[in-house]
């Protein structure tokens, strides 16, 4: 039964990815990719990784779909002209077909080699789960993934938040969108009502996920993604205007989480080691960092969608 469920899910994953990439028209490719994201969330649930299923659901359904559909809307002019059809089928001439065939062959060989390597891999000598479990007492939290994320590998998370900030700064340097502004749909009163109903609940759920991160799957990343999705919904309901270049307060919000994390790391440096929390205050420090991260991640991820998403500004 289980293998049947996993087998079917893997087939659905592969097939939807293949159809998404090989589909002739762009709108179908984007929609099939959103379907692929949903299937990935189910795959993570089957791989008993609830944290990742939560993150994939929050980001796949909330952000990636909206980002891609918005980009698609900008590519197709509102005048109903057909989408720029660049046929994904291999070109008719022989050279083109030979090129496509050879690339497919190389990709196939790569897949075969990797698959062979998967089967040949010896059992791991260092059992990570047991190591994490052994040190859970000193981690300050009860949930292993959060312990790894914020305590044992806190350094990676610190740099990872910096990477998110850099992506946002990259977006800011690009300045206003030069492309056609997406034709804003007519103001939809029902959508405004839905946004007013759902957004408070999303914020409450984000708070719950933040708090739950200490002892069960949840945490700053999923909570931040949920807050960003709430901002996207508000923007789609035309209750939240697109952001121009961020003012002082928004800049503080964007960088705040990272600065708090950096501050805690610097303070701990005084005790001689990077990011090793004293066991007594570990729980409190992690919650402080996660709270700051939730707000900042929510603003950063929302900024990725909202910055310059409005009508074309006169540069």
């Amino acid at each position: 039964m289980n293998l049947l469920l996993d087998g079917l899910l893997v087939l659905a994953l592969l097939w939807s990815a293949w159809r998404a990439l090989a589909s002739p028209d762009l709108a179908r490719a984007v929609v099939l990719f959103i379907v692929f994201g949903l299937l990935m969330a189910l795959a993570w649930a089957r791989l008993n990784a609830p944290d990742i299923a939560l993150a994939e659901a929050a980001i796949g359904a909330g952000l990636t779909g909206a980002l891609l559909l918005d980009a698609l809307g900008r590519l197709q002019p509102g005048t109903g002209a057909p989408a720029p059809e660049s046929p994904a089928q291999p070109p008719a001439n022989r050279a083109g077909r030979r090129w496509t065939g050879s690339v497919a062959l190389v990709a196939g060989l790569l897949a075969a080699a990797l698959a062979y390597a998967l089967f040949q891999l010896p059992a791991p000598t260092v059992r990570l789960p047991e190591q994490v479990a052994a040190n859970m007492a000193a981690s300050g939290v009860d949930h292993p993934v959060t312990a790894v994320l914020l305590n044992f590998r806190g350094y990676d998370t610190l740099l990872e938040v910096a990477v998110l900030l850099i992506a946002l700064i990259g977006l800011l340097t690009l300045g206003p969108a030069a492309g056609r502004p997406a034709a804003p749909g007519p103001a939809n009163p029902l959508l405004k009502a839905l946004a007013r109903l759902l957004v408070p609940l999303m914020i409450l759920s984000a708070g719950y996920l933040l708090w739950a991160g200490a002892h069960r799957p949840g945490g700053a990343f999923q909570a931040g993604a949920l807050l960003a999705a709430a901002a996207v919904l508000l923007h789609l309901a035309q209750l939240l205007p697109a952001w121009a270049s961020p003012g002082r307060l928004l800049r503080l919000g964007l960088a705040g989480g990272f600065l708090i994390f950096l501050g805690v790391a610097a303070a701990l440096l005084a005790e001689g080691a990077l990011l090793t929390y004293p066991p007594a205050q570990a729980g409190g420090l992690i919650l402080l960092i996660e709270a700051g991260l939730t707000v900042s991640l929510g603003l950063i991820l929302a900024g990725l969608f909202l910055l310059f998403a409005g009508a074309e500004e006169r540069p």
Partner: protein
Amino acid sequence: MLEALSALLLLAGAGFYLAGTVGLLRFPDVYARLHALTKADNLGLGLTVLGLALQADSLAAALKLLLIWPLALAASATVSHAIARRAAGLGLKPWRPEEKRP
């Protein structure tokens, strides 16, 4: 007793999911498919949630489950409205029996 009732509800929920999917595959135009879609959403999901809520080990877990249902209702109603409104805006005519089936 609770077990049997829960199993019954889960089966009914799965039945409505099937109805929604078959409706999506078979119905001729966007508007009819929206109807089928919302059946899968509110009744399929609703009965599944009810079936599982009976088995929840604590009241809080049962309430969280029951919270999912109205959320899905509100979301699917609004999205169906937005899509139908946009379809009408693009001049999509509802299907007429005498038309050829697409």
